[in-house]
């Protein structure tokens, strides 16, 4: 359960103030599938960053599963990110020197899980995302679609309740893009809340709720 109330986010750029988010309120129930759309610079990524605790709002409150997370300190926020939130980015953000296996194992490693315990979980994840024979490949040896699948495997390895995806298909060709979206939708069907920023209206329509942002505001919301 996610609840944003009157979120403002203002960036100071030189002498100018940029209102990235203006009075944004929204809620999402568990298992929702939400598409966030809107023109470039309208605040979609800013909203996702607030939802993912990667950024703090200037005003407003954020409640996640009944906890006022906007009031938590840095360490506790890191714990929430680790256990409840999975991120998928447009540019994959895989660590270039690590293999697919080690990239997927990263969250488990940061959480302090022992190596032998990680082994089974990561191997299962690799198989589940069709990467069974790519375990020891580094990112530069993988195609775009494979990289994004590694990223999704990494985002879900801690069994989060929410996946936040910022234009996950933005860097992929059409077929790989559809493949990735289908994987995300499948995860959503299994009960994970999926919030995805996209420029592609067709992808947006597949979501059960569409939020349209313009100039830092939620302009309109549609169910479909």
């Amino acid at each position: 359960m996610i609840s944003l109330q009157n979120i403002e986010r203002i960036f100071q750029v030189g002498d100018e103030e940029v209102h990235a988010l203006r009075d944004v309120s929204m809620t999402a129930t568990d298992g929702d599938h939400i598409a966030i759309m809107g023109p470039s610079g309208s605040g979609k990524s800013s909203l996702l960053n607030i939802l993912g605790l990667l950024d703090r709002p200037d005003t407003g409150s954020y409640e996640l599963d009944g906890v006022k997370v906007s009031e938590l300190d840095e360490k506790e926020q890191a714990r929430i990110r680790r256990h409840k939130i999975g991120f998928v980015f447009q540019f994959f953000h895989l660590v270039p020197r690590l293999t697919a296996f080690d990239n997927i194992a990263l969250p488990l490693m940061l959480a302090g899980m022992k190596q032998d315990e990680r082994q089974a979980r990561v191997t299962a994840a690799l198989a589940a995302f069709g990467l069974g024979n790519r375990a020891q490949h580094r990112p530069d040896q993988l195609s775009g679609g494979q990289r994004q699948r590694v990223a999704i495997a990494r985002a879900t390895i801690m069994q989060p309740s929410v996946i936040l995806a910022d234009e996950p298909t933005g860097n992929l060709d059409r077929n790989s893009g559809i493949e990735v979206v289908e994987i995300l939708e499948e995860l959503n069907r299994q009960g994970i809340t999926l919030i995805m920023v996209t420029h592609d209206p067709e992808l947006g329509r597949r979501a059960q709720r569409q939020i349209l942002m313009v100039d830092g505001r939620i302009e309109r919301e549609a169910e479909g």
Partner: protein
Amino acid sequence: MQIRDILSFSLLAATANRGRTLLMLLAMAIAVSSVVVLISLGDSARHYVIDQFSTLGTNLLIVLPGRSETTGGPPPLLGATPRDLTLADAMALNRARTVRRITPIIAGSAPISVRSLEREMLVLGSTSELYEIRHLALSQGSFLPPGEPTRAEAVCVIGQKGKKELFGNQPAIGRWLRIGDRRFRVIGVLSSSGVSLGEDLGEVVIIPVAAAQALFNTSSLFRILVEATSPEGIEQTRKSILDTIRVRHEGEDDITVITQDAVLTTFDRIFKALTLSVAGIAAISLVVAGIMIMNVMLVAVSNRRAEIGLLKALGASRTQILGLFLTESTILSSIGAGIGLVLALLGMRLAAFLFPQFPLQLAPWSSAISLGVALITGVVFGVLPARRAADLEPAFALMRR
């Protein structure tokens, strides 16, 4: 995070970027090896000098005629030349309770000849006690016979090298040699104990002190060696020597007493100070290496901004990032220090090979020093970059610009 994971993650990160890292490792290696080499040289020199002094004997006091300026007190009156130390003075010292044995010494150089062979050698006039006091050893025959030091028996003990030069491979015991115009019978040959503080015992001829007095036509002693009964007795002995001689010399303090301990501790202090200051100078190169580490790490942080943002997104806290980057800089400095230690070892081996007469070796705590230096440098110069990494805002770090 598991320690093992922190180490392997940081090691991989530290070694991923070769060119820049290599240069920095070189700087660190040179810095550490110069520190270790200089400390080792200083330490070797200290050991050398102290060993040399220890071979003199144990609980040793040396009495010299004349007052040393460093002992303080009023300067001698105009024209008051110091009285000679005499054999009687030496014998008088024997009466103190804390004195185990004494031996007088007269030294001088004289031509030694056997038939037509002639060599200039150091002649020491002494007594049988010299054998124990100086820890001498014989390879053949016996030492000067005990007895009244005033008896000038015509016998001598010669050094190993002198024996070779004068008698070749022939047996020397029982043969006669000439010192100046006097004849002496060889009764013993020293074993080769090498150089001891400039006195080459290989080329020495030891004769009874009374014989030396006659030979050099003098009654004054070069010095008196006194062995105290115990290390605790040394100070007491020093006082009683000064008292005895003062009484015998009409109230004048005109001798100098050097205790071996005092000399040893002075040398020890001087060498330690010297070693430390030289190492301190070498440590400046460590600062240079440290700044290079800092630079490498700062570049790494700005190159890997996205990665840091990602780690935070995956649930890494500020402290975790701080730890990862500190580990990385410490791994870098440790690898550099390890290479430096090996370089230092090779350097000292080479020096020992080139100068075999000196006991040159790596100081025993070199590896501890390098490890300590590596940890301190890595942490001190890694703090700034690591904090910069830890303080990155994740949303900002993940932005593609």
